[in-house]
Every structure is written in C-alpha cells, then in structure tokens.
C-alpha cells in the first residue's frame, strides 16, 4: 500500500532479511493494519458524535435563536462560524444538524441490514424458490428511483423523523440482501457447515450459529458505506425542502439557505458543506478500508 512505502524501504535495508521475505512480511503486516488515514477518519467521526451528544448538556446557543446584531456576521469569538442570514449561530446549527444526519445514519442502515440479512441468508441458504421470491422483492424495491419514493412518502405521510428513517432504510435493503446472499452461498459450501449438518443440526441452527457470524462481518464493514449513502440522501431531501421541517436545523437546509447568500456571504453555505463532505469522506475511507479487510475473495485468494 502506498502509505507504507517508507517502512518497506527501511525493512529492505536490514541486511539479515532476505528481500522477498521482508516484502511478504510487510504485506501481511500491511493487511492487518488499518493505517493512519483510517484512524484520522475515525477520530473525526468520533469527535463529531461527541459534539452532537454534548448538545444535550453543554450550553450551546439555541440553533433557532436570532441575534439581529449578528446577521451575516463573519467569524468571531462569540459566533465561531459567524451568523447566518437570520442571525442564527452557524456553529450551533452545524452541530445540531449533525444530530439529524447521525440519527438517520445510525438507524436506517441497521434496519436495512436486519431485513437484508434475513432475506439474503434465506435466499443463499435455501436457494431455489426462496431465491426467486427474494429476487422479485429486491427488484420491486429497485423499481422506484430512490429519491422519488422518498419524496412521495415524506410528502404524503408527513416529514417526520421515523418516516425519514424508514424510507431510507427501505432503500438500503437491496444491497445488504445481495451481499448477505453472496456470502451465504460461499460459506454454505464450507466444511464447517457440512460438519454441522452431518451432526444433525437444524437449518435454523446452521443459519444462526454457523453462517451468521461469518456473513455479518462483511455486512458490518459495508454498513459504513451505507451510512454515507444515507447521509447524502437525508441531506438531499432536506436540501429540496422535503426533509425534516424547520426549526430543526439540518445540513441540507442550511446549505439551501446559504445558496441564497452565496454572492456576499459564501461561508454560510460552505461551513455545513465542509462538515458534510468530511463526514461522508471519512465514512467512505473507513468503509473502504474495512471492506478490503473483510473481503472474503481477497483474503482467500
């Protein structure tokens, strides 16, 4: 990997190590390490989560409070990221907005994962007719372009947080189902499953005790990428004005309000944009690294 090339070079300078051995041991070490990029991304996400939790007990300014002296004000000691067009504290709004993004990102993927596991594992284990039924369900979910269904549900059933979480969770089901199915197919052929079957284990026992612990690992790694997908979808819906309604601050709405002020006060849109970009980037980086880490194909090849 790129980030370890210096340590690779150092390794090779040690005389009693044969070149090939050093390279191999280095590659193994490399695969077992997550790398500093991963930990940087992890720290950013953890910091943001802690800030979000701290809104419950630290005295942040009310995100809806309008301080008319600070309309479109720049960065200051009182308002760290300045005030927006209505004089509201951008810092406080960004932190509160992260709360909405995270409350979707930490619920929807797990609802989708639970359903995806159930459907994908049954399809991969029983195959045949079960597989056909599952593929029809997945095809039906994919029949609606995601944003259109989300707009429809939020419009007709009301823009509440539970509705938002459920409609986004619905769209994470197909991917989880596919990965669960593919991994179940792979593991169902392995010796330990055959051994369990030879000992007379029931289907349910094989699925839960033998297959689930193996199948859930790649799914958990993938769930980080799904989290970034849910944050993008939530942001898009808020940006379009069909997400959680005001006064609750959301990143998407903050950016859409900031666009109105883009000519004079661009930072109003850019502050939430940067936070959102870094959040998605961090989740992608972590997810990508963990996926390489847990990829069955790569580690068994």
């Amino acid at each position: 990997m790129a980030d370890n090339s210096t340590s690779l070079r150092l390794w090779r300078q040690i005389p009693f190590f044969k070149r090939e051995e050093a390279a191999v041991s280095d590659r193994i070490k490399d695969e077992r390490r997550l790398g500093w990029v991963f930990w940087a991304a992890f720290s950013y996400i953890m910091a943001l989560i802690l800030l979000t939790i701290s809104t419950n007990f630290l005295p942040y300014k009310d995100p809806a409070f309008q301080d008319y002296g600070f309309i479109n004000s720049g960065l200051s000691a009182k308002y760290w990221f300045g005030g927006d067009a209505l004089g509201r504290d951008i810092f406080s709004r960004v932190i509160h907005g992260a709360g909405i993004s995270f409350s979707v990102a930490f619920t929807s993927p797990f609802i989708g994962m639970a359903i995806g596991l159930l459907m994908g594992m049954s399809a991969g284990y029983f195959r045949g007719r079960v597989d056909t039924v599952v593929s029809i369900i997945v095809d039906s979910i994919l029949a609606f372009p995601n944003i259109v269904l989300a707009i429809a549900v939020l419009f007709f059933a009301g823009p509440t947080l539970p509705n938002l979480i459920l409609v986004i969770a619905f769209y994470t089901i197909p991917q989880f189902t596919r990965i669960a199915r593919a991994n179940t197919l792979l593991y169902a052929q392995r010796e330990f499953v055959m051994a369990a079957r030879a000992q007379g284990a029931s289907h349910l026992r094989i699925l839960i005790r033998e297959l689930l612990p193996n199948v859930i690992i790649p799914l958990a790694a993938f769930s980080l990428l799904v989290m970034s997908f849910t944050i993008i979808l939530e942001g898009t819906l808020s940006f379009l004005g069909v997400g959680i309604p005001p006064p609750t601050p959301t990143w998407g709405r903050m950016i859409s309000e900031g666009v109105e002020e883009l000519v004079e006060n661009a930072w109003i849109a850019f502050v939430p944009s940067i936070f959102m970009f870094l959040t998605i980037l961090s989740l992608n980086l972590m997810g990508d690294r963990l996926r390489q880490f847990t990829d069955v194909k790569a580690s068994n090849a």
Partner: protein
Amino acid sequence: MNYFKAKILHLVPVFFLVTFASFMMLNLLPGDLVDAILLDEESSVPSAADRAALEKELNLDKPVIIRYFIWLGNMFQGDLGRSYINTQPVTEALALRIPVSLELMIMAQILAIGIAVPLGLISGYKAGQPIDRGISAGAFAVLAVPLFIMGTVLIWIFAIWWPILPSSGHTDFAKDAWGNIQGFILPALTIGLIEVPVLMRVLRTDLISTLQEDYIALAKSKGMSTRYILFNHALRPSSFTFITILGLQLGNLITGSIVVETLFSIPGVGKLLIDAVDARDEILVQGVITFVALVYVGVNLLVDLMYAVLDPRVAARGA
C-alpha cells in the same frame, strides 16, 4: 427470444406494483382525502358543492380497487388528473417540462463521458504512477461530494468568483440557442462530475486488463503511437462494463435532475415535482411521481434488452 419474453413478462407485475403504489399514495394523507386536497387550496372550509364535485371526480363512492382501475384506464388515455392549484391537467404540465429535463440529462451524460473517458484512459495507462494516484484520489474525494454541494461550489466558482456562466434561469432554445446552452452548462456539469468517479474507475480497471493482451504488445512492437493504440485498439474492448454502468446511472440521473433543476431554477420535470410539493398540490405530485416511476421502469427494461442485443451471452445466460 425467450429472454426477451421473460423480461417483458417480468414487467407486468412491476407495472402493477408501481402504479398501485403511486395510486395508493394519496390515501397515505392523514385525515379525510377530500378535505386534505381542498383545504390547502383556499384555506377556508370547502363548500358542500366543491366536496361533492371532488368526490365524484375521485370516485370516492366506489371501492379502492375499482378506483384504481378507473385511474389506470384514465392514465392510458393520457389523463393523470388535474392540478388543484391552477386546474392545469397534469399531463399538459408534464409535456411542457419533459424536453427541458431531457436536454439537461443528455448534456450531463455527454459531459460525464467526455470527462470520464480521458481520465480513465490516462489513469489506466499510467496505472500506479503519480498521475494515476492523483486522479484516483480526486475521484475518491468527488465520491464524497453530494450533488447539491457540487452545484453550490460550481455556482460559486463559475458564476460569482469568476462570473462567466449564469447561475440560474432558462432561456428558450428557439429564442436564444447559445443562451439556452450556456444556462445548461453548469447544471449539466454538476450531474456529470458526480458520475465521473464511477465511470472512470470501471474504464481504468478494464483498460489495465486489456493492455496486458497480446495484440496490444503486437501493436506496440509494430511501432504504433500510444495514442493510436489507446483509442483504436484498447478503448473498445475496455468499454463494455463502462456502457453497462452508463445504463445503471439512470436512477442517479433522475435524482440529479431533480436536485439540479431546483438549485438552478430550471423548469424541468424535477422542478415541477418540487414546486408541486411546496404548493401541496397532491394530484400533481402523484401524477409526476407516477410518470417518473413508469419512465424509470420502462427505460430500465430497454437498457436490459439492449444489452441482450449487444451481447448475446446475456440472453443465453438469462434464459
């Protein structure tokens, strides 16, 4: 031939599912349907005559399943109801907006291909070298940029910081062709750039494996120029996955046009939907959603069938 029949037959349940879901959406409205539609319109208590007229129009005296088939029959005759805000028929509103969205999507796709192909070629040809690493890192970063942030940044760069393009609005092509195209550049670029990373990556991966083929070595040994080899020998065999992904991007294209039309105030189908949502125009929302979902299903089918024609192995496997 069996593959084609199976694909088209598969469409039947999906069609009923999509239309039924779109139809039932109105019933998700909290409270009484007639009140929900009439109350937002004039925010006064609707008269008994208005209520009766709407009840008759929506056939509320009949059971749901009958209403669904009446609605479906009307749909086939091009009648998706009419807006309760300005009484314009939904299909008429759609007909005005479709060409705009279509132009936007086509331009976005052209820009996406125009940017992704050269980047993918350079990156695949120089795989592992600094330029490839730079391009790949850039692509990874762009993957983390939501559409509306990309659009905001592009507006700021090209309309405010260096004002060479309009940030919003739409001019009629017949009146001012250049103005029309100019207005579409930034929105189309927004959607296009979002698609580039995925497209570029698949092209890069396929190109790397193509470049290891014997006929590439032969072409090199014959002394052909790198550019000639890349464009005339390597590009075509490397582009099959690329074309597949291009077809799969349709959903993103729809999402993209809704966001971008809202951001740049372009009067397309996406803007129509969002405006209808803002105005709480239930029948119009339902009509536009039905239309978009049906187009999506239809075009996905076309894409599937096209692959089978282009690559007979797909049909052989699927049958």
